């Protein structure tokens, strides 16, 4: 048996290099006897097949390949398809170019995308007219699609028309930047396009940097269009017609996507190509397996580990762990403010006073994120109005909670349900258990509902869930954008079904407010009002834990919470 094991070793060493450790462990007797027997048996089983296996060719290209593992699936090559996953968005940034993209900035020493810096991507440069109503884009003259045809203004026009016209995800996003109609885009010449806005809009340019308005090879796409499908949506689901840094080599939805570097794309640092020759994205549903893979060096980077695994890997110190609080996201506990008893502000505030914040942060998140509780607000007024979310003056105070509950007319508490979806069980379940325990102390009996994701979203959409936890994320995290998209109107994302005329009014006014001070004043009012109404209890901004091999550099936290592989390189 031992013999089989030894003859087995060289191949593994050549390929991976870490096996020596576990072998030593094996001989030092760290493993129990059963494990040894099993290992020996398995070794004997595999020895025959393993001996002759060798992979020199692979070893050569391994350094130039980036292997990324994720729990979710890439389900389309066209990010505009309804139902596209985040991973599909991530992919589209590599295969397609947009006119512009976000710059980056450092936040607490970590690189994050910067909403306020918009730089050219396919556009070499852009000019905004002084009244803010016209934006002119000057296209790069050297840009070529993957099939070699040059990128022209016509392609840009067709693609942007598609974004606002076709029945897809794009239109809904673009209107947040006042971009709604095809006639807003005008071709000036072969390499110049003009965008006209009905009013100046801070979010017009950032919207063009999101994943939807990617630029398609219009000739190729049109050749695949049909009468029923004038925008070639069907064909583009499984094919790309872009100019991006990578070309799809193989696409197996829900399994693997392999990208090959586009050698003609030279917009990396120093006008070079992207660093990695190949990028492999694999779907590995088990989080612990993903952790194992990256720890053993079989995968190069992963960003969706469980908090516990990320904490563990960080402690072991053999990998680079970049933990960025998702500054455009919030995890909260939400009420349906239209459903009794949560229509009473006192009830909402009572619960806010009863939550065991510190315990939840520790047990559910392993403290990997930024707390949104525990601040001191002087005079109950929000200290900052330029951003959202801000740290809230929330503390656990059961006496206060009881008092509020009595004031609301529930001295003996009440019964309710608390829901979360299965996909978030990792953090939501411990959170829910702690919440249940703590609310029990003030007489509120909570029944925990763990719902399949589709069921949860349906119930939320129908506004039938009284009390639950969710998370939100804004691609364009400006203060007014949050309020407009998450606290106003009958849309799905208005989780708390908040219908407050003042918030609606201030948020709409803030949208087109060009003056920073006035904007911040609106923000102070909104943030204060929001806290008073307590439609949701913001808990924290969870960290995006990017765990990668120490050789990987350049990681930046991106708006869509995916990796932009064009940023990355290997030392």
């Amino acid at each position, binding site marked *: 048996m031992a013999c089989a094991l030894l003859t087995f070793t060289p191949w593994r060493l050549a390929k991976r290099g870490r096996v020596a450790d576990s072998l030593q462990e094996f001989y030092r007797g760290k493993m129990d006897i059963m494990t040894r027997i099993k290992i020996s048996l398995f070794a004997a089983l595999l020895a025959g097949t393993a001996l002759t296996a060798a992979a020199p060719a692979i070893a050569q290209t391994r350094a130039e390949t980036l292997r990324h593992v994720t729990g979710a699936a890439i389900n389309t090559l066209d990010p505009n398809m309804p139902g596209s996953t985040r991973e599909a968005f991530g992919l589209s940034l590599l295969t397609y170019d947009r006119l512009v993209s976000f710059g980056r900035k450092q936040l607490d020493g970590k690189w994050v995308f910067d909403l306020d810096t918009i730089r050219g991507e396919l556009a070499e440069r852009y000019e905004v007219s002084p009244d803010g109503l016209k934006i002119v884009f000057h296209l790069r003259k050297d840009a070529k699609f993957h099939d070699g045809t040059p990128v022209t203004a016509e392609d840009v026009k067709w693609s942007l028309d598609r974004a606002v016209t076709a029945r897809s995800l794009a239109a809904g996003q673009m209107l947040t930047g006042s971009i709604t109609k095809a006639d807003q885009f005008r071709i000036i010449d072969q390499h110049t396009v003009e965008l006209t806005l009905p009013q100046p809009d801070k979010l017009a340019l950032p919207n063009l940097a999101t994943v939807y308005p990617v630029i398609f090879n219009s000739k190729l796409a049109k050749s695949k269009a049909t009468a029923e499908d004038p925008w070639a949506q069907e064909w583009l689901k*499984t094919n790309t017609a872009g100019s991006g840094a990578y070309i799809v080599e193989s696409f197996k939805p829900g399994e693997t996507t392999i990208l090959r570097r586009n050698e003609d794309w030279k917009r990396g640092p120093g006008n070079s190509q992207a660093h990695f020759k190949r990028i492999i994205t694999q779907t590995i549903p088990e989080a612990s397996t993903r952790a194992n893979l990256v720890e053993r060096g079989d995968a190069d980077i992963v960003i969706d580990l469980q908090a516990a695994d990320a904490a563990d890997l960080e402690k072991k110190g053999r990998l680079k762990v970049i933990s960025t609080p998702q500054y455009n996201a919030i995890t909260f506990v939400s009420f349906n403010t239209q459903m009794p008893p949560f229509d009473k502000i006192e009830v909402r505030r009572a619960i806010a006073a009863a939550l065991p914040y510190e315990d939840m942060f520790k047990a559910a998140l392993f403290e990997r994120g930024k707390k949104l509780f525990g601040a001191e607000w002087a005079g109950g007024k929000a200290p900052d109005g330029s951003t959202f979310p801000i740290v809230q003056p929330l503390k656990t105070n059961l006496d206060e909670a009881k008092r509020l509950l009595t004031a609301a007319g529930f001295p003996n508490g009440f019964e309710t349900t608390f829901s979360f979806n299965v996909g978030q069980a990792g953090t939501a379940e411990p959170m829910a258990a702690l919440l249940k325990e703590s609310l029990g102390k003030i007489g509120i009996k909570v029944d925990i509902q763990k719902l399949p994701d589709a069921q949860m979203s349906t119930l939320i959409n129908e506004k039938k869930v009284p009390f639950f936890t969710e998370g939100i994320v804004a691609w364009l995290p400006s203060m007014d954008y949050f309020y407009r998209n998450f606290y106003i109107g009958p849309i*799905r994302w208005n989780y708390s079904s908040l219908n407050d005329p003042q918030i609606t009014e201030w948020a709409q006014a803030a949208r087109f407010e060009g003056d920073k001070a006035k904007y911040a004043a609106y923000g102070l009012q909104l943030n204060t009002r929001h806290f008073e109404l307590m439609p949701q209890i913001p808990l924290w901004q969870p960290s995006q834990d990017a765990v990668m091999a120490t050789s990987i550099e350049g990681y930046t936290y991106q708006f869509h919470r995916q990796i932009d592989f064009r940023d990355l390189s290997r030392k």
Partner: protein
Amino acid sequence: MKLGATANRAARRFISSLPALFGVVVFTFLLMRVLPGDPAVFFASGPQAGPEEIAMIRAQMGLDKPVPQQLLLYLRDLSQGQLGRSLTTGQPVLVDLRNRLPASLELTLTALLIALVAAVPLGVAAALRPGSLVDHIVRFVCALGVCVPTFVSGLLLIYVFYYLAGLAPDPTGRIDIFMSQPPRVTGFLLIDFAIAGDWEGWQAAARQLMLPALTMALFVVAPLARMTRASMLASLGSDFVRTARSLGLSRRKIVVTYALRNAILPVLTIVGIVFSTMLGANVLVEKVFSWPGVASYALDALLSSDYAPVQGFVLLMASIFVLVNLTVDVLYGVADPRVSVE
């Protein structure tokens, strides 16, 4: 004449199973409609996901029509060989299933083979000396295999053989990602590699297959061994084995040609059932080993209320169930001359 009778029987069996298949289709369809999740909502993820976007997706999926009409439309599509489109992968369900089925089949067949290779000798050994220590050990070992949930044994195997010992390849699907795929002929990697003559690839695929197959096999060794033991005991205690002994036939001939060949017939029936059950039940194994099979595909679809893939999957499984039973029937007819007479 006998072959004809067997074929006849098989045809009759097949026709009589069609109503069951139809029942499965309708039942699944209705069950999916009872699911409280609305796929349109789930997939409406745009920033302005208001009623319009949801209505658009609903219309795209045909969910705006009354359920009976949806059912009729679905049946019409089925009759044209269309299974609908998956929202989770964005692909036609038929394409997805075709791509993924070989993975599931290859895994299940390998697991079944491993299980049989282990179970039959174990069962025979136990039956040859009933009540002996060997018998008790076999019984105990088999019972151990069935009492660990597959997801636990799978994760433990990964932890030990991949993470700790580094003996097994990374549990990331059917083949080492850095190996090139063989040209697709059957979709079974082992066969395709063999056809391509790429033995290095063949070994890579075989290594990848080892752990998940072992996990699955562990779970089915017990019923197979138990069945083998019982039917071997019956066979060994039968009159014709006594006859063989009274004639001085060699022990090998008695055990193998006389007892085992008769005993294997009931095992064959069980194998059919076990195979179809495994194919449907390896959801968890596929999940744990990131195996791109049909079961994990259906699971994801189910949790996101993506109707079409689940319906397609269930129909596929039911058809395989029917086919496997048919095969077992035919095999049984070939192996047991008594059957075709009835």
